[in-house]
């Protein structure tokens, strides 16, 4: 029982982390508090659904199309919608407020388009739902795949951000965009790149999540909320933080559901979130701002 609770918690947490990592990049580096983030996750779910049900392309293969497409889409969103805001913002606070308002509008545009195309119905499809035995616990293969992606993306990007030149540039922009300019970092490019990359990660999350969750056009906000909690808990802009925070929440939910009461899973999420905020306001891996 215990091992099952832990393993299913880890897969659940992997899903949370997966969905949150794009947002931590967008919020951390580009300083865009993207309220339409969940809608873009859902868009990818629908694209995966269409590819799977009409063209018979399996979602994992579909990623080859979806990742570049969503990267491009988010690049365009940043260039057209957000660049003017970045240009006129006098400071970070102003950019955050402006981007919240702008992406709030974007949320309704994306949701509206989805509603026109897909209606309000629930969608779900069957892919890789076979059970895999993990140390005696039967876990759905698609959830393991999602967990795998979360770990690879989380660790991979942690390494990229800490060990490579471009990663260092991105971190520099995250810490101080003004000073970053002084050492010849193209801040606009870096922000745009981080935003688009975050959007591509959101799309990966959407595709993988659609394999095991029932989704509908109005579900985006659920993902935005969950992602926001994970991002803030893990430390804004920190990939490893998002991964760890997601896993903690997943395992906690799973243990509470098993040993206390499934009715308290949401409560435990917020209790942990509160505790982290009280003890370490900048998040588990966050750097306290001066």
């Amino acid at each position, binding site marked *: *029982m215990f091992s099952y609770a832990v393993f299913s*918690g880890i897969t659940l947490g992997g899903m949370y982390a997966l969905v949150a990592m794009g947002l931590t990049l967008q919020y951390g580096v580009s300083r865009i508090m993207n309220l339409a983030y969940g809608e873009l996750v859902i868009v990818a779910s629908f694209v995966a659904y269409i590819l799977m049900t009409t063209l018979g392309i399996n979602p994992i293969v579909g990623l080859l199309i979806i990742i570049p497409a969503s990267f491009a889409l988010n690049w365009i969103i940043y260039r057209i919608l957000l660049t003017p805001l970045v240009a006129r913002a006098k400071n970070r606070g102003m950019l955050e407020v402006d981007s919240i308002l702008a992406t709030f509008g974007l949320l309704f545009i994306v949701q509206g388009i989805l509603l026109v195309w897909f209606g309000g119905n629930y969608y779900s499809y069957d892919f890789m*739902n076979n059970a895999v035995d993990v140390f005696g616990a*039967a876990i*759905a293969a698609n959830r393991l795949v999602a967990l795998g992606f979360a770990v690879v993306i989380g660790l991979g990007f942690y390494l990229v951000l800490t060990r490579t030149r471009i990663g260092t540039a991105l971190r520099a922009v995250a810490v101080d965009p003004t000073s970053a300019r002084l050492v010849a970092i193209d801040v606009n490019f870096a922000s745009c790149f981080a935003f688009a990359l975050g959007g591509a990660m959101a799309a990966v999350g959407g595709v993988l999540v659609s394999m095991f*969750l029932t989704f509908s056009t*109005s579900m985006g906000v659920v993902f935005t909320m969950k992602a926001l909690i994970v991002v803030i808990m893990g430390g804004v802009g920190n990939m490893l933080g998002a991964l760890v925070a997601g896993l903690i929440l997943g395992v906690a939910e*799973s243990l509470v559901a*098993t040993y206390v009461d499934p*009715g308290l899973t949401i409560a435990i999420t917020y209790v942990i979130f509160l505790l982290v905020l009280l003890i370490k306001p900048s998040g588990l891996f966050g750097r306290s701002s001066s």
Partner: protein
Amino acid sequence: MQISKRLRIATLTAATTALMSTATLFGANAQETYRIGYAISKTGPGAPGAATSTTPNYEMWVKEINDAGGLKVGDKQIPIEVVEYDDRSSSEEAVRAIERLINQDKVDFILSPWGTGINLAVAPILDRAGYAHIAGTAVTDKAPQLAKRWTNSYWLLGTGEQYAVELAEFLKGLKDDGKINDKVAMIAVADGFGIELSKAGREALEDRDFELVYDKTYPLGSQDLATIVNEIKSLGVDTFVAFSYPPGTLGLTEQSRILKFNPKVFYAGVGTAFPLYKNRFGDDAQGVISLGGASENDPKIADYIERHVAFAGREPDRWASIVNWASLQSLQQAIERAGSTEREAVNAELAKGGFDTILGTYKPGDQNFWQVGQWQDGKFVGIAPTSMEGAQDLVFPKPDWNGAQ
């Protein structure tokens, strides 16, 4: 200069508005159309339910009537005109929209919104304004009292208790035959529907000497219920009952399949009677039990399903959709029988009942539909009340899951 320009614009706007409102007034007076209004959840958490059970039926009803030239009122044919609002799944928004339909749009008839909570919220307003309220998607134990308090209200899906009692009675039959043990695991979503049905279910099952070895709720919106299924699997129950919303219903089914938890009786719903369920699980839907059911051999029902597919591109659900369609047929006949579009006359005819619908002779609010149904060979057939004509035998025990491909 500035002021006069503004003044000009203001005058122009006022004039246009005045003109437009007279136009509406003329339209209403001439009674060239029968104006139907509704507020429905197009967005928000209620949207998927509304898009499954309610909206396609409303739209199909209007289209079929208008294609035939309109409602036959006396010796005239009056087409239907629709005023539609999105209530964004919020009661407050729905109340505002309904008030607008009454006071500003002055529609002739208002069709019900989706969901128990919102229907309860708008019921007093409709009653006060003298509109009939055919609540198509509300399950509440107060239904009989409400129908008495607001005489023009009809609560189509009845009470949570009736579904729970019918299920418990059916399970008791199986237990008395020695087919299942007395252990039941029950899980419910912690929201209106789940709370009411699990409360009624708990009483009904315990009255019939069942032991509830698992009885818990899970939070609204949660689809990750693997740990629950895993725990229930170890309890040795023959009967699993879930009063869940569609995403949870699908999640529970999927997890049961993955964990090979295959009790003799597997009951889950709302959502099982949705075409989505069959599409998702294919042959594994076989034997799963839920609320609702359809007499699919009945030519009227079969014809309705066929028309729904042609119109909406998908099948209707086998519970609320069918009852809602019967109520829409009733409304059409009430207007035509009244021979008038006067609200009181239509309301009076509605109250008389005796309409010819896909549920046979019907009056909105009648509970003459299936309370318990089961997927059998790709059809969601009615199995209880067993006294109803066309009740199918239960597929028992539930066959093994084939597993995902």
